[in-house]
């Protein structure tokens, strides 16, 4: 979707992960014989890359495929097609999608995930120390009890939790603290790359700010790269280096955070940005209100998927999917009106 050449030429950072043509279809079986009758095209050809120490965000409304994309890259769900080339090792780059399950498990040391719901992502019967140390044991990195205890204490301190609480259970913590446990667990293996799947969405504003600051501090300290998946645009603007806007399984616009907010080119991005309520009552802005809902990804509209809600659609928008147009070295958008 995005012009690869322009993206890499503008990149000063070395790439850490290159995603090309990522697809994930969920088959639909129906009828008496459970025949394969169609697919939910959740992710339909994504191209982007993430540089070292970079934060790239995927934004979009529910059902646009952003979570599926994040999980497919880590192969928590198996992608249908495409490649994700990992440059994290000194050895030759590897395509994560071609690794067998043993090799992929090995690789997951470097690739971790933080989930949205800190209530659902922690086992209520396992104390915090167990949740944090499990990965260390599974990967055989730390096996001795003392060393394990010490590492857990270090990790808890790192994310701002008191190590004395190590034997407490998840229900004894607040939402923000639970999210910190999730972060400590993700950091246990010293990863290079973390998918933050709506990592701060469930938190109150004052707690959200604490967790965002923590994520930034950790990034600086450990040279982490983040794939930040979120629907809250003000958080995304604040935390990202680059942002990809998704609509129905595809990236419609990609740019640096600044360019995207200053100069959005795709009509969907413009509508999305204008819909965000701002905490500044004296600034009256023109608002673009989109009509209707996001169409079903089972049977996406022909041509440009956005034409059914687009305020400036033309007849030809129904006919073919637009090619990405380069707006600047770091900015591209897929819209026929820009071609």
């Amino acid at each position: 979707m995005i012009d690869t050449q322009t993206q890499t030429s503008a990149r000063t950072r070395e790439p850490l992960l290159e995603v090309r043509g990522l697809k994930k279809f969920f088959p639909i079986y129906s009828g008496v014989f459970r025949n394969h009758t169609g697919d939910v095209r959740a992710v339909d050809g994504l191209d982007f890359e993430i540089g070292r120490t970079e934060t790239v965000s995927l934004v979009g409304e529910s059902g646009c495929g952003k979570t599926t994309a994040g999980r497919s890259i880590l192969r928590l769900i198996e992608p249908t097609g495409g490649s994700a080339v990992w440059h994290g090792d000194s050895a030759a780059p590897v395509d994560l999608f071609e690794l067998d399950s043993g090799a992929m498990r090995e690789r997951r040391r470097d690739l971790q995930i933080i989930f949205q719901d800190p209530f659902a992502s922690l086992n209520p019967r396992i104390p915090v120390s167990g949740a944090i140390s499990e990965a260390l044991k599974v990967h055989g990195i730390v096996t001795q009890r003392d060393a394990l205890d010490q590492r857990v204490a270090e990790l808890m301190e790192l994310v701002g939790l008191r190590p004395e609480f190590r034997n407490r259970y998840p229900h004894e913590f607040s939402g923000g603290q639970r999210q910190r446990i999730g972060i400590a667990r993700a950091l246990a293996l010293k990863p290079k790359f973390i998918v933050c799947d709506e990592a701060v969405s469930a938190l109150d504003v004052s707690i959200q700010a604490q967790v965002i600051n923590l994520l930034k501090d950790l990034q600086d300290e450990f040279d982490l790269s983040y794939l930040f998946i979120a629907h809250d645009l003000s958080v995304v603007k604040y935390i990202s280096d680059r942002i990809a806007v998704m609509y129905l399984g595809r990236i419609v616009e990609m740019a640096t955070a600044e360019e995207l907010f200053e100069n959005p080119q795709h009509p969907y991005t413009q509508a999305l940005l204008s819909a965000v309520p701002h905490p500044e009552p004296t600034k009256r802005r023109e608002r673009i209100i989109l009509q209707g809902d996001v169409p079903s990804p089972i049977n996406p509209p022909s041509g440009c998927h956005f034409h059914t809600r687009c305020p400036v659609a033309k007849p030809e928008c129904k006919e073919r999917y637009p090619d990405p147009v380069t707006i600047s070295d770091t900015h591209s958008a897929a819209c026929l009106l820009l071609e």
Partner: protein
Amino acid sequence: MSDTDTRSAGKAVDIDARKPLLEVEDLKTHFFSEEGVARAVDGVTYTLLEGETLGVVGESGCGKSVTSLSIMQLIPNPPGRIVGGEIRFRGKNLLGVSEKEMRRIRGNDIAMIFQEPMTALNPVYTVGNQIVEAVMLHQGKDKFEARERAIEMLRLVGIPSPETRVDNYPHELSGGMRQRVMIAMAMCCDPALLIADEPTTALDVTIQAQILELIADLQEKQGMSVLLITHDLGVVAETAHHVAVMYAGKVVEYARVDDLFAKPRHPYTIGLFRSLPDLASHGQRLETIPGIVPPPTNFPSGCRFRTRCPIASQQCAEIVPELVDVKQSDGHAHTVACHKLEEAERL
């Protein structure tokens, strides 16, 4: 279509000339459990004027939803009970009326919409039947008239082809459509007050924009008041006339929306605004409020914010601060509950 016109028109009303529609005074709703008494709402005072939108903001557990459920008297008892205060609607104390009278007020005069339309709608009845039920009950219309009214209401809230949608079940509708149905149901008896409890929190931003526009539109057409409960300061900034900020079961600040956003006075409000990524520039560290909201079973003595407040003193631990009117230059009310207003200015 932009909704700028409707919003500014809605907000341009001369709110000073309005009469109060709803006055909540020193309301206390406590929950009694084995772990002790949770003082979820513990002395809430605010006023909602006719035809205006009052935004009530605060973080989870501050008591904003319990306040609105108390107004409707929908607090599950046990464990909850309204233990003190007054709720005056058009001058009449709702806490003194009979359950029968209250049932007439609910739906007719005061209607409510909730955050999660899927759980608020009954999944085994068509949306039409659910609206028809309310219309027949409250307006004494027959089934046929009520169905006509249901279709008319669905059209009013912008549901396409309402004649067929009226026979849909809730699961056949999208989240935005379900919220529209909830609004249609709430509006079918022309209430004077609509309580909207996080009406857009579960929705995507583009759908949220549609719903907020719809509420502002209906407010203008019907002249109703809206009590908007939300945690989103952006939503409040764009829709409300007055704002009440709640913390730990109390209102800590109340002002006109422009005044509050131009110059918040309470240290909590100040901290809340600074935590917003929206107002910080890229790369700059977000300011945070240290610590977490205290549990309602164990609020600190004195000012409840003092454990997280950068300027708290001994006095704050001993004396509960009352809401004091600091008045804007044009004489408009701006009330704050803080002992340290002068220090807060320098925050």
